[in-house]
């Protein structure tokens, strides 16, 4: 109990004094996970809309694979990305192992199935006649897609939140492909693991509280957009 209080005090003091190291770690967390989420949104939403609307053999199998991917363990992603990005691996020439770019790639791989899966579900949940009706009213294909996405925007915002929440809180892949390098690839989760190992439990708790506050702030912002636009 005493330890948790110490952690709270430490968190308040770290935030109040704008500790430059903690600030850098927090910004990097936001930067890496934010970019990964945006990439996964582009990939996941286009892929998800396609999967939901197109008809082709093997569609169910593909959707099952995507749904399985929603629970992709970060350490597994981390291991594979590591093997691919190593100097002497197939993509070694890129020389991005142990950089924020490598972390973004790993996190985007984790988040994309989540966004895809939720997109498929939300598009398929629209009233079945809607698409035909829109087309019958003379909309082009592009207009039809836009209307469908607009109609499904509330669950799609949930996809953003789920994707972002999934990657900002993961540690397995980040520590493997980023290496937890001070001032370069150290993010909130990997710093928490390290401070715990160092026995600095107060700092570890403080970092966790900052991470929670950050997640809450971003979800609050997205939820407000979501609820404001709720159709009446």
């Amino acid at each position, binding site marked *: 109990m005493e330890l948790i209080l110490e952690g709270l005090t430490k968190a308040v003091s770290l935030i109040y004094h704008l500790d430059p190291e903690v600030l850098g770690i927090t910004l990097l967390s936001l930067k890496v996970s934010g970019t990964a989420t*945006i990439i996964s949104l582009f990939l996941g939403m286009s892929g998800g809309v396609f999967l939901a609307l197109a008809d082709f053999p093997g569609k169910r199998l593909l959707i099952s694979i995507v749904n399985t991917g929603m629970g992709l363990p970060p350490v597994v992603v981390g291991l594979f990305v590591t093997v691919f990005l190593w100097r002497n691996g197939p993509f*070694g020439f890129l020389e991005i192992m*142990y950089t*924020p770019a490598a972390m973004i790639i790993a996190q985007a791989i984790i988040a994309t199935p989540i966004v895809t899966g939720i997109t498929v579900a939300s598009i398929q949940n629209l009233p079945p006649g809607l698409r035909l009706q829109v087309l019958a009213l003379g909309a082009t294909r592009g207009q039809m897609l836009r209307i469908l996405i607009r109609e499904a925007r509330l669950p799609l915002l949930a996809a953003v939140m789920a994707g972002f929440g999934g990657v900002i809180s993961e540690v397995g892949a980040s520590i493997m492909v980023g290496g937890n390098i001070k001032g*370069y690839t150290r993010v909130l989760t990997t710093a928490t693991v390290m401070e715990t*190992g160092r*026995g600095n439990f107060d700092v570890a708790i403080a970092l966790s509280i900052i991470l929670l506050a950050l997640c809450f702030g971003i979800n609050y912002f997205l939820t407000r957009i979501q609820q404001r636009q709720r159709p009446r």
Partner: protein
Amino acid sequence: MKRCKFVPLFLTALAMLIWLAVSPSADAAQKNLILATTTSTQDSGLLDVLIPLFEKESGYFVKTIAVGSGQAMAMGKKGEADVLLVHSPDDEKKFMAEGYGMGRRLIMHNDFIIVGPAGDPARIRGAKNSADAFGRIARSGALFLSRGDNSGTHAKEKKLWKAAGIVPDGQKWYQQTGLGMGETLNVAAEKKGYTLTDRGTYLALKKNLGLEILAQGDPLLLNIYHIIEVNPAKWPKVNAAGARAFADFMVSKKTQEVIGGFGADKYGSPLFFPDAGKKPDSLGL
């Protein structure tokens, strides 16, 4: 109208991408140096002091990857690290004999200690030496927590079991955590078990543990750190010049002084003893 609300979101996205693109990155390949090392050098905070000194002096950007000594050497064997700072002498000799390393130089030492609950159910306080202490733990069936991760500490532990003539694997009182030293100490504290630890990590965590030093001072418990430059013959992408610069930095007089003074203010005694230039035999090996 509705679409307008997505414009700020899109702009934010764009801004983040640009931010990422222009953010400072140290990716001049020649200047990157990967140091694979053991967790104890990072968890004790020693590298946080030494790395900035080296970076400032040499202009290299050091990527410190803190893993167990076993994994560090595995990275070296695959050419994924340039220079290693490790503490697993037998494996290091093998690593050198197989031609994976170029120079291996002595840097520093401290010692391992056997810690456990203050009640000392296996009565190892009166043990003659560390092998005897391990023997008493085995005979009493008191819980022992092993790292189980091929780290330098794990290698030392296996050596001690061998010296005691005991095969602990599969015994009910022998549990492997597979975690780093800090985590393993925490598990030992929670379960009131014994474990082998380096003194530095123990001192750093002591406050919250409730474990006591029960055996120490045996020459077998010496914990010796070497620096190894990875041989670029096999993996041409290895940054040999950087590795040499870092190894030279570690044995330099100035660095050795920093190592010798590190931790004295916080723990009352230094965590590491600088040994550059000494013969390993003089340490009692």
